[in-house]
């Protein structure tokens, strides 16, 4: 199938799945891919683990252990592992890369540069390595997480950034159309375990040095990398301006 035909096919599927519930999207993903894994951040995306576990009890789950997560998050990952009786692969960065970064720039270089160098080594490189082992992956990404209007998070997408050479990697974002409130309604009504940091005012949870609680009315993005301009990274073409 050519690139354009493949893209159009996924757009059709995205259109079909967009009106479905996260559970229906997950079922589609799990029924169409055997080698598929959930990326679990240790935050409210636990809702996905709960939903997926009800569909397939042996669901593959991995978490990116950057080495800088909160103690509460490590405790929570362990709690989820035991609660669902599942294996959670902790994916860690290459020690030599972390050592080289810390040796040359110290432990908090992201406050002076930006977070990308550290995230690249601790998160993106391990993620890329992990995704080489699967045919599809599932994230808890939602449209309402980004303050920019350009940030489009489709329900299904052809992940060209992390695909094996000459191969296809499909990415599912079953919560794309849900709001934070809907995710929390699900967690509360289904007695899903959650990270204790949420009770301490944390909405978005990442690494300890780069995450802070947010106050009433603040967007969750303001709890991450607050020293950087939130919308600086927005890029891409406005879909509304593209004529098919």
């Amino acid at each position, binding site marked *: 199938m050519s690139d354009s035909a493949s*893209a159009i096919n996924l757009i059709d599927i995205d259109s079909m799945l967009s009106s479905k519930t996260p559970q229906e999207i997950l079922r589609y993903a799990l029924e169409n891919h055997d080698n598929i894994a959930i990326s679990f951040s240790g935050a409210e995306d636990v809702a996905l683990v709960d939903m997926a576990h009800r569909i397939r009890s042996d669901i593959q789950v991995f978490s990116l252990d950057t080495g800088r997560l909160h103690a509460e998050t490590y405790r929570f990952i362990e709690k989820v592992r035991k609660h669902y009786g599942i294996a959670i692969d902790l994916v860690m960065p290459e020690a030599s890369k972390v050592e080289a970064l810390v040796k040359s720039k110290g432990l908090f270089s992201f406050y002076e540069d930006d977070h*990308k160098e550290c995230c*690249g080594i601790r998160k993106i490189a391990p993620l890329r390595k992990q995704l080489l082992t699967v045919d599809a992956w599932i994230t808890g990404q939602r449209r309402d997480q980004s303050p920019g209007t350009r940030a489009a998070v489709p329900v299904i997408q052809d992940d060209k950034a992390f695909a094996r050479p000459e191969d296809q990697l499909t990415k599912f974002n079953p919560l794309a159309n849900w709001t934070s409130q809907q995710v929390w309604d699900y967690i509360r009504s289904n007695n899903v375990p959650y990270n204790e940091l949420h009770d301490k005012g944390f909405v978005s949870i990442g690494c300890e040095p780069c995450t802070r609680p947010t106050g009433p009315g603040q967007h969750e993005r303001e709890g991450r990398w607050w020293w950087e301009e939130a919308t600086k990274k927005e*890029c891409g*073409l406005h879909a509304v301006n593209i*004529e098919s």
Partner: protein
Amino acid sequence: MHQADQFKFIDRVVLADETDPKSEGMLLAGKYNIDRAPFFIVESESAPAKIYTVYYRFVKEILNGQMTEDQELREIQDNHPDLDFI
């Protein structure tokens, strides 16, 4: 690309002007369902057009060029701000 002496391999450059949906780049983006720029279209007589939206893949697979891992990771993050929430 100029610095790496790769621009000599580019046959044609078109502009995707966000304020002009009829600009050639925007029409091509629509045709191939592309939502970001730059993108690269590789045409040959024997196969359908291949589209690259990831620069490092284009450099590696088509230009047989080299990029450092740091450069690749930086590009991925620049083009995928949504990964902040992974």
